[in-house]
């Protein structure tokens, strides 16, 4: 039988065109080159600033970044790990979480990612696994943002009106000054302890800062490694020094601190009349001041924590870091880690945050706001000591935060609180403590 059908060339051509079209649409430029998930605590303006960094990464690599931001990063991250679905990268607000995840083998090392970038050396955090089998020290995190603590903020005009034109240079002067402010029925200290789910940390910052500037670097590092008792010696001295300073105000002021957020408390500096005159807070509080005075932030200034004891501790500064760690070593995750540590990312971040971004990486010293410039330059000098409660094991840090709140309400319970803190300390395995402490600041490059 002879088949008389002719090939249908138009139909074949149509099919070819359709198939080619389908293939092309599958490879179109709109498709991302991969996806990476990142969990961090930034929301609001901080998130917007970080988003600019992520957009820069997306534009450079074509990789889509899925950002999830929530203030309770630790709990959300832990839940994700337990379900076997951690984010690719998490920005941890507490350093000790890092040690725990290293001990559990949850984190991916970053040596190959960061070793090629000499400028990132000051940002890299190297740790060893402290549980069996013990591991060698490796790069497990990058400090993507750093906050300067050991700062007292004030409104120069308001203090000058009370006769205080120069910042105090000793702790005794600071105590005298706060007494002077309180004498007129004014509130000297902006106290705000509320910061759920970790209320109390502004108080732990106080005690750490006093400990560092009263007993020095060696004692501070011993304490963060879990080698100092709470009940006696330098730690107890730090608590009582803080109590004495706050004692110049009424008990009502301390109690109000329990119900006030640190941001609300800080904005009291800029109200008329001032709600308070001195604010012990980290450099990130500058955002709050700017929000309170949108026309430029107001003439807020700072002075560093003066030496509390006889030793000169003026070169010691407490800092805290936001640290990025990688939980899944996918190619997009590795690329994002490298990018976050890089100079271009930090430059974008600085611009997108109106210069309210600080890093351990050397940056240009030119700042539009001289106060911001002074904060940045202090990160390049002296010795930087990591936030003590960030270094403490979670159980210890949580007990510390709660103890601060109880102490504010009832200072008479100090001995009982410190005894309880010692009891918590004895129940925490030594492997949960960190060996990190103080480091010389990276010198400026220009």
């Amino acid at each position, binding site marked *: 039988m002879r088949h008389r059908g002719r090939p249908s060339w138009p139909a074949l051509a149509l099919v070819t065109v359709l198939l080619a079209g389908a293939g092309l649409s599958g490879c179109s430029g709109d498709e991302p080159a991969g996806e990476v998930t990142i969990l961090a605590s930034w929301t609001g303006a901080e998130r917007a600033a970080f988003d600019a960094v992520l957009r820069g990464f997306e534009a450079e690599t074509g990789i889509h970044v899925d950002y999830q931001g929530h203030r*309770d990063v630790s*709990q959300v991250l832990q*839940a994700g790990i337990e379900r076997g679905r951690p984010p690719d990268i998490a920005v941890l607000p507490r350093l000790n979480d890092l040690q725990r995840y290293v001990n559990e083998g949850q984190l991916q090392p970053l040596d190959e990612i960061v070793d090629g970038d000499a400028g990132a050396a000051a940002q890299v955090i190297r740790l060893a696994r402290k549980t069996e089998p013990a591991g060698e020290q490796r790069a497990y995190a990058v400090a993507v943002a750093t906050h300067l603590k050991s700062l007292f903020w004030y409104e120069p005009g308001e203090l000058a009106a009370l006769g205080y034109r120069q910042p105090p240079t000793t702790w005794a002067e600071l105590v005298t000054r706060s007494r002077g402010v309180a004498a007129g029925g004014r509130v000297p200290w902006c106290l705000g302890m509320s910061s759920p789910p970790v209320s109390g940390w502004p108080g732990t910052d106080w005690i750490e800062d006093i400990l560092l500037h009263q007993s020095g670097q060696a004692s501070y590092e011993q304490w963060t490694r879990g080698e100092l008792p709470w009940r006696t010696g330098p730690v107890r001295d730090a608590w009582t020094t803080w109590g004495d300073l706050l004692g110049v105000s009424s008990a009502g002021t301390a109690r109000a601190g329990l*119900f006030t957020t640190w941001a609300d408390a800080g904005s009291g500096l800029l109200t008329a009349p001032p709600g308070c005159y001195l604010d012990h807070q980290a450099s990130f509080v500058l955002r709050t001041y700017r929000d309170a005075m949108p026309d430029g932030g107001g003439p807020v200034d700072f002075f560093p924590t003066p030496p509390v004891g006889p030793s000169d501790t003026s070169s010691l500064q407490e800092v805290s870091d936001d640290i990025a760690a990688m939980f899944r070593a996918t190619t997009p995750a590795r690329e994002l880690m490298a990018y976050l540590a890089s100079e271009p990312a930090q430059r974008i971040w600085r611009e997108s945050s109106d210069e309210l971004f600080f890093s351990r990486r050397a940056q240009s010293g030119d700042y539009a706001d001289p106060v911001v410039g002074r904060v940045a330059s202090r990160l390049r000098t002296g010795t930087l000591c990591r936030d003590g409660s960030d270094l403490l094991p979670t159980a210890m840090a949580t007990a510390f935060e709660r103890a601060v709140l109880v102490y504010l309400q009832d200072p008479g319970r100090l001995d009982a609180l410190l005894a309880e803190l010692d009891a918590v300390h004895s129940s925490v395995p030594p492997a949960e403590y960190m060996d990190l402490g103080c480091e010389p600041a990276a010198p400026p490059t220009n």
Partner: protein
Amino acid sequence: MTVADPGGRPSRQVSTTRRTLLRLRAALLAATAVALVACLAVFLGVARTADAAADRSVPAILAVYDAQHALRSAHAAAVRNLADGGLVLGGPGVDYQRQIAGAGQYLTLVAENNAAGDDGTRDIQTVEALLVTYTGLIEQADARYRDASLRALGVAALRDAASLMDDILGLLDELLAKQVSVLDEQRDNGWTHRLTPAVWLLPLVVLGALLVPTQIYLSRRFRRALNLPLLLATAATVGMVALTSLSLRSAADLDQIRRDVAAVNESRQGQFHQVRHEAADGLADEVQKQCPEACARTVAGLRASAPPPSPPASAASTPARGAETETLTHAARAADSNSVEFVLPLLAFGIGVLILAGFQPRLAEYGYRST
């Protein structure tokens, strides 16, 4: 007419009438097949969309509302019971425990029916994680309330819990928006588009348009009053139109469901406002008791965050439940296919058989007759 080839051998050629009959029959069978494919495709497309809306999106949306209400009620109960309770027998109370347990079950329901993909799953997991922190804060508040000298710390923990609850409810709002967005996509997708009926109606019209002239042609050509099988095929075609048009009803039901969800949202918001006001007011009273002078700003902030609802919303729960029941009824109706997906192929098969039966006697009659 019989023709002979040039070699003189007789050749049997199909008559013109027979060729016409064969072509008509082929066209009718082809039109039947096309109509079946079009009707079935559209009907199944609409039915699956309605199924997805009824079985996943709507239950997920209602479960999010239920979870929000349970959480708000739990928080209000905790504030009320801790404020009123004694040092020994106090505590956040049975209401709180029951509502928190209920919220957990509703979140499980949301997870089972989640229509928002990985994004939705991640939100649910985040809410569950934050709920652990929230209950921890309530436990902390409870422990502090039991020590009269630390009651202010209990109130502070309660305030922290309230702040975290606001976060949790905000996340649930985002999750709700994602589920509603999926429902909107289901309502507006191609299967429920107003021009989609043309996809199935056109082939059926063509089939009908072929059946009627065929009937006329046969009646004139063969001088018979009526071809019964083709008449029945025409009736069956009308039946297919009627059955497939049920997909229009499902599409309309999806529209109705979307309106129902908006009504549920409205009645739920009134209900939420009432509970939120109760909790915020109770907490503000507690803060004021513990910090009468220095916390005026905090107290004012708490009261301003949840002012009393303008119309008393105590009766709002009944309309909310009524709107939800209606939503579920419409969803069930939209998803009910009435087995049309099985009847349509049977009807099409019947039409095919009737077409064959209608042509068979005429083709037999004109098998080899020349015209």
